[in-house]
């Protein structure tokens, strides 16, 4: 997947065919591997320098695992990741440490992500110590003050323990820690999901301000498309371990090109009551299949309202869709492109789906 159009975009992080399969082991003493849980299963994704990329999908579809795999916090079992042109999967100790400085993570639960036995200062200065930044106690203390101010905390709280803070304040501490190494890239894994609604907006605004101020590249993970579309430049939609649609936020939100994205969007309440009344809900049939038993061909076919002949037989590849440049989706409604299940070559003869593109794809618009 590459974004077509004017000038190649500046790619900071890139995944190709990325896989994270967790072994499923039998309970016995022998612990034989009896199968694989395909948490991330062939993801192609580029994150452009300086952008906010929203990554959305239902719970359990592999968003966190993908975010972790991009930073090699979980080891990929297949495919490649590059960070600023460097091969992440093959990095040695020193390179990996530098990656950890340049790429940070903000975690979902601020009550779990801070060590209860370490003060705010100890937590925030850990990256400084690890990477030998701002050497000397005085310099580190000054730097910690600076970071706390940057995230809107009173530097006087440095000596306090996490249990003295509210969720929003803890999340600010977590953000300060993630920023301490002056990273280029930040993965925010449901970073506001567990906060009080009133606090969510504040932390969200903080992240947006920091991104502008520091020129950060953000991967913003959320299960809630409506939360993501206003903060993201582009949106990537994930289903059952695969990125199935990527495009400019406005295009994906206004003209989703993949039935799953349309279903996700149709679940989002519209702000205007009249619009809300006319909103058509696409209720998906059935449950999400288990990531240990991914359906053949298109993995969405068991729930897709538009499923047709090639869907069980050909695993759809991302292809340019819609009118916006850089908008891609993996769906045969736009032409049957992908890997046949029987394993022979790729890209079978394109057979236009029965009257799809024009009528079927324009959704809630």
């Amino acid at each position, binding site marked *: 997947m590459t974004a077509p159009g004017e000038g190649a975009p500046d790619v900071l992080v890139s995944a190709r065919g990325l896989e994270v399969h967790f072994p499923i082991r039998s309970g016995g003493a022998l612990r034989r591997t009896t199968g694989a849980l395909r948490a991330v299963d062939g993801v192609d994704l580029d994150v452009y320098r300086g952008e906010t990329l929203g990554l959305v999908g239902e719970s359990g579809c592999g968003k966190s695992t993908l975010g972790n795999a991009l*930073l090699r*916090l979980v080891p990929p079992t297949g495919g490649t990741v590059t960070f600023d042109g460097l091969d992440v999967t093959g990095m040695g100790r020193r390179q*990996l*440490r530098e990656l*950890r*400085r340049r790429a*940070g*993570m903000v*975690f979902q*639960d601020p*009550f*779990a*992500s*801070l*060590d*209860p*036995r*370490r003060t705010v200062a100890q937590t925030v200065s*850990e*990256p400084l110590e*690890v*990477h030998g930044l701002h050497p000397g106690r005085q310099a580190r203390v000054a730097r910690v*003050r*600076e*970071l706390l*101010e*940057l*995230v*809107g*905390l*009173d530097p006087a*709280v440095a000596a*306090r*323990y*996490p*249990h*003295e*803070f*509210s969720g*929003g*304040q803890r999340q*600010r501490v*977590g953000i300060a*820690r*993630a*920023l*301490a*190494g*002056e*990273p*280029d890239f930040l993965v925010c894994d449901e970073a506001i999901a567990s906060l009080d609604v009133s*606090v969510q907006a*504040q932390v969200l*605004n*903080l992240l947006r*301000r920091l991104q502008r*101020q*520091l*020129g*950060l590249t953000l991967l913003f993970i959320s299960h809630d498309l409506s939360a993501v579309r206003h903060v993201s430049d582009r949106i990537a939609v994930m289903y059952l371990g695969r990125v199935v649609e990527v495009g400019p936020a406005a295009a994906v939100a206004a003209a989703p090109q993949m039935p799953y994205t349309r279903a996700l969007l149709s679940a989002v309440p519209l702000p205007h009551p009249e619009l809300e009344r006319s909103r058509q809900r696409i209720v998906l049939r059935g449950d999400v299949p288990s990531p240990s038993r991914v359906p053949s061909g298109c993995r969405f076919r068991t729930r897709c309202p538009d499923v047709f002949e090639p869907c069980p037989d050909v695993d759809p590849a991302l292809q340019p869709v819609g009118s916006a440049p850089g908008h891609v989706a993996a769906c045969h409604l736009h032409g049957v492109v992908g890997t046949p299940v029987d394993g022979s070559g790729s890209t079978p003869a394109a057979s236009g789906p029965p009257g799809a593109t024009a009528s079927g794809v324009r959704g809630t618009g």
Partner: protein
Amino acid sequence: MTQLPTPGATPAAPPPAEPLPTAAPVRPRWRETLGLLARNPTAAVSAVVLVLIVLVAVFDETLAPDGPNEQDPSLQLQPPSWAHPFGTDEFGRDVFSRVILGAATSLRVGFLSVAFALVVGTLIGLLAGFYGTWVDDVLMRLMDVLFAFPAVLLAIAIVAIRGAGPANAILAIGIVYVPIFARVTRASVLGVREEVYVRASRSVGASDWRLITRHVLPNAAPPIIVQTSVSLAFAVLAEAALSFLGLGPRRPDPSWGLMLADGRGFIEQAWWYAVFPGLAIVVTVLCFNLLGDGLRDVLDPRQRTLMAGSGR
């Protein structure tokens, strides 16, 4: 590379809208723990008694009225009196002095053996729990083998091989407790290892060594501390048992276990001879156990939340 602005250049960070913590005193965690412990009367009394016993052991020579082997043949098996509060033994030695002097022996063996088990066992448990996989398998199978031996039998076997004496008693008791510390530590580490804050530290580049020493061990420590206290109780008991069996310190060195063994023969004529060293053992063992229970209550995270209202 992004360059963070200095505070002066920061375009006025928006004021934090949530109230910041009020000026509550910043207390280190261990002071908090001590405070909670003080509110648990049983544990507090036990701790005080143990401190006294340790002080007695440290200043034994100053405190004991007589030397360990000062004999007065005219005063054999005298009942307790003002001159000899715990009476005298069959050689006319002052039992009070010997109980005081025996404290050092018992506690030294107890502390050193538990220290050995604590260091070795905790290290093994840390490595097994943190790294998992084959490291875990190998180390813990080894511990299982060690644990499968009945404790006293194992200690006796070690002493039988290496000969009697305090040093070997320490080694024997220490080895017996290694698997217990290894198991307790491993179980605790398995829980802490999965904590998000450990992953968070890894995500900023912390090395395994740093993760283990700064995050995993401190957070996995409470059950280990409790186990230490409980093990001290058993170690004092084990030292007494080994001495009683003639496998620990040797006569005429003062030792509670030895005195118990020797006094047993005179229990009908001179109950004080066996009872006072026995009491010393019971009180010490009981206090270590009660302190362990108190620590368990205080260090248990849920209990802590209940009592101090602080998260986690």
